[in-house]
């Protein structure tokens, strides 16, 4: 087990290195850097001024060396401001340039860099934003996993029944609807004071406020309430729920036709016990992997949802960073994404072994 974990960690680190280099290379392409120089210094710089600015700010070195610096295995660049003569460098605090700087300052040392959009350190931005997204994801998972598993198992235990058909249609519909559609539909239906359900409910005297839910989740950053958080959570969860329910159903229908289920039935076991005791555990092996795969996918989904509901989390930050050509922040975001993907994969592999006694070591 230990050797397996070590080996998996080894491959994880290797994969992480490769992926981060790809992102580093792409964000540091020449046009990107030029744009950065123009936004940072002056939009009217000439080509040679841009070049000088880039060299002065440490962007002139070969990509591999700068990747090493960013990682923290190559000493950070140092230089002098051509105008003021103040020391400059990767590890120099721009607000306080005279203090003695460290030699190495990459992500290994915990220095994630400086965000040009938010004018703050990347690590502090990421930690607050990730926390916000973490809360959103937590509620999404709390809603999505039980609902999808129940829907999948109920529709899979009697394949072809009316209940199965109904639930299948519902899950296909939710999976087929992208977040930007379902989000807009939900906002219109539930959070508009003029349209959808709210005016009707108000007319019947069931609703006293302006609308059922809030269309913006900005206030949820400070204080999560039912009104301000329901719609973003439902929007993200809907897509995944349908998907996992379909997978669970497929796995369940397969298990229900397995011979050992017939064995159990012909032992005289009740249908309910057959489902709960004999089928469930075998049917959950496949959805477990799918759920784990869904978590990185959710990170992707929140980009749209957070922007739509103005919830300042990880996804929203990513959009801002991309718009503002914020190289260090983008790099930080992609590292987070890579780690999430690899970690969930590791958990899914280990969990799979424990769920499935056939591949466990005896």
């Amino acid at each position, binding site marked *: 087990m230990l050797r397996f974990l070590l080996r998996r960690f080894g491959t994880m680190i290797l994969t992480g290195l490769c992926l981060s280099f790809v992102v580093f290379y792409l964000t540091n392409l020449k046009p990107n850097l030029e744009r950065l120089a123009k936004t940072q210094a002056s939009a009217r710089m000439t080509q040679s001024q841009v070049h000088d600015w880039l060299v002065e700010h440490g962007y002139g070195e070969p990509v591999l060396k700068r990747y090493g610096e960013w990682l923290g295995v190559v000493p950070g660049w140092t230089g002098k401001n051509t105008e003021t003569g103040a020391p400059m460098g990767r590890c120099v605090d721009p607000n306080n340039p005279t203090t003695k700087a460290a030699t190495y300052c990459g992500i290994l040392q915990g220095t994630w860099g400086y965000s040009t959009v938010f004018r703050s350190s990347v690590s502090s931005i990421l930690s607050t934003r990730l926390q916000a997204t973490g809360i959103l994801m937590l509620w999404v998972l709390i809603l999505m996993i039980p609902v999808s598993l129940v829907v999948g198992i109920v529709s899979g235990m009697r394949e072809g029944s009316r209940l199965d058909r109904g639930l299948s249609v519902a899950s296909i519909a939710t999976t087929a609807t992208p977040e930007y559609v379902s989000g807009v539909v939900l906002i219109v239906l539930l959070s508009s004071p003029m349209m959808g359900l709210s005016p009707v409910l108000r007319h019947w005297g069931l609703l006293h406020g302006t609308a059922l839910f809030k269309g913006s989740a900005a206030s949820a950053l400070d204080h999560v309430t039912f009104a301000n958080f329901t719609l973003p959570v439902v929007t993200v969860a809907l897509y995944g729920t349908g998907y996992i329910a379909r997978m669970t159903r497929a796995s369940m229908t397969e298990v229900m036709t397995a011979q050992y289920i*017939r*064995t159990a039935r012909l032992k005289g076991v009740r249908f309910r016990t057959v489902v709960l005791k004999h089928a469930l555990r*075998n049917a959950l092996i496949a959805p477990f992997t799918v759920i784990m795969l869904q978590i990185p996918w959710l990170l992707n989904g929140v980009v749209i949802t957070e922007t739509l509901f103005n919830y300042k989390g990880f996804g929203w930050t990513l959009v801002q960073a991309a718009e503002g050509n914020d190289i260090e922040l983008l790099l930080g975001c992609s590292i987070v994404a890579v780690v999430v993907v690899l970690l969930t994969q590791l958990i899914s592999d280990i969990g799979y072994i424990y769920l499935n006694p056939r591949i466990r070591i*005896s």
Partner: protein
Amino acid sequence: MTDQTTWDPSQPILEIEHLSISFFTRLREIPAVMDFSCTVMPGEAMGLVGESGCGKSTVALGVMQDLGKNGRIVGGSIKFKGRDLCKMSDDELRAIRGKEIAMIYQEPMASLNPAMKIGEQLAEVPMIHEGLSRAKALELARQIVADVRLPDPDRILKAYPHQLSGGQQQRIVIAMALMSKPALLILDEPTTALDVTVEAGIVDLVKDLGEKYGTSMLFISHNLGLILETCDRLCVMYSGEAVETGAVAEVFDEMRHPYTQALFRSIPLPGADKNARPLIAIPGNFPLPHERPQGCNFGPRCDYFQKGRCDARDIAMDPVPGGDRHESRCLRFAEIDWDAPPQVAKTTEKSPIGPVVLKMDDLRKYYEVSSGAFGDGVAKVVKANESLSFEAHEGETLAIVGESGCGKSTFAKVLMGLETATSGEILLFDENIQDTPIQQRNANTVSSVQMVFQNPFDTLNPSMTVGRQIIRALEIFGEGRNDAERHQRMLELLDLVKLPRAFAERKPRQLSGGQKQRVGIARAFAGGAKIVVADEPVSALDVSVQAAVTDLLMEIQRKNRTTLLFISHDLSVVRYLSDRVMVMYLGHVVEIGTTDEVFSPPYHPYTEALLSAVPIADTRVKKKRIVLEGDIPSAMNPPPGCPFQTRCRWKSRVPGGLCDREMPPMREMGNGHQIKCHLSEEELASMEPVIQIAAE
């Protein structure tokens, strides 16, 4: 429970009357079983025999009232202890399932829940039906596990199904069926997935337990020999109908239905010989359920068919005069001369054996495997083949016999070039090929060593026409100068395997199993193969088709002077068609010699057990019963000394524990007959024949 008191034990325990079962698809109703009647008395074992698709398993599921969504009983009744099962509510049925009627299935691995411990699965039965506490139920489970002769019951109760061998799993399924001491046991091909020596152990167990508990049995099998060993009465089914029923001895010796007779003539019984007394295949194919003929279903394939009479109307079961509840569904059974010898198909001369074409010298194949799900186990060496040495001659059939895991398939892979040998030599016409994988072999070598696979259903490309697949083989082998020539050659190959030329345009799914296997044979012979490895070529086929396919192979062999390496576990077929036999156990050749030498004493102790284990469908045959204890040892961890010493019943006759320490030498018994055993000359000479045919 009240019904048990009202039921009179002298009455039948199971009474099926005029049962008809249909499956409903969107297109049509498919009648699976029609007008089926049978009676099982208490303590009686009833056999249901027939080919696949004849409806025997459907009858079993009908008794269990578990026909799925599409199946429905459309007529007749199934009475169990006098109560009609078809009219019971779900709750009543549940009380009977597992408690009064238990079932044993064909594939033990698939029938056990992979995620539940064995003890858990066994204890469930008395917990449901008798309301026992968990602890009490586990205690009972432990006792029954010991009853089915499994070693170390405590360990087994805590194991998961995949941790047991196939034979052990089947014993667990039997134990599960016996947990509530049922009155009726339904066995659906319980040993088909198992090796013969394991099968023999299971059959013994079932018979003993039946006597011990007084359980009635409904034994479903396609193997007539097995029915003879286990049952009192049998019912032969054909295409959804019972065609003949009666006491086993009576039906075997005085059959009164043409299908039963044809079935017996198409299986290789002792005395059959490929040259002098060839098998008689049943012509034609099994009718599909919706293509059944009018009148007698067997009519179109029957030798005694009379137009206008047999195909006029439905035929009922009629009692055979003088028989013990012996019935036949034939209009003409009183007219037919049942003792007339079969019209002998053309006999052939034994073809002479040619020079050596293939020579194996001390061939070894080892695999390195690492164990454990996390891949951190120590790498182990599996010795799949150990010092294999033999020669095969032109025009000869060499059978390679052994149970699963004995290394016969590994050997085939090495010969074909799918694997390369670890050491040793393979000489094909004086050319060393042991180190040349198939990708590097030239077209000539590839086309001269070909293979016929076990399962014709999976080895043909489902999206290519039959003709195209054969032409593809011709292209690869470099046969023919252009497409027209290859097309012509393809048609000739179809003629060779006796398929209509029109089949060239068909897709594999439009063919029956036997026809698919013929295509497989045509493909193997496309490049004029000199050596054909036939890996269990008929074991996936029905009995009536097997004979035709074996005959075809023999005929092509005679014509082309091909060397046939016939891999099989079915000793009846081997005895029928092979010239020489090689017996393998755990990667070793333990005996090799001509068929007569191997099938008569002196034997290697393993050969002796193997011969004894094969069920033979002939009432005249007297067999010595030798049941091997335990399972085949793992090739990963073979026993020291002689590979067979852990199960050998002769071991005590070898002085000084030699079997535990030393690998026996290959001993020459004269005339090329070799035995790998430590037994002394006298001991070997004292062996008695396993199979004896009583004088008629």
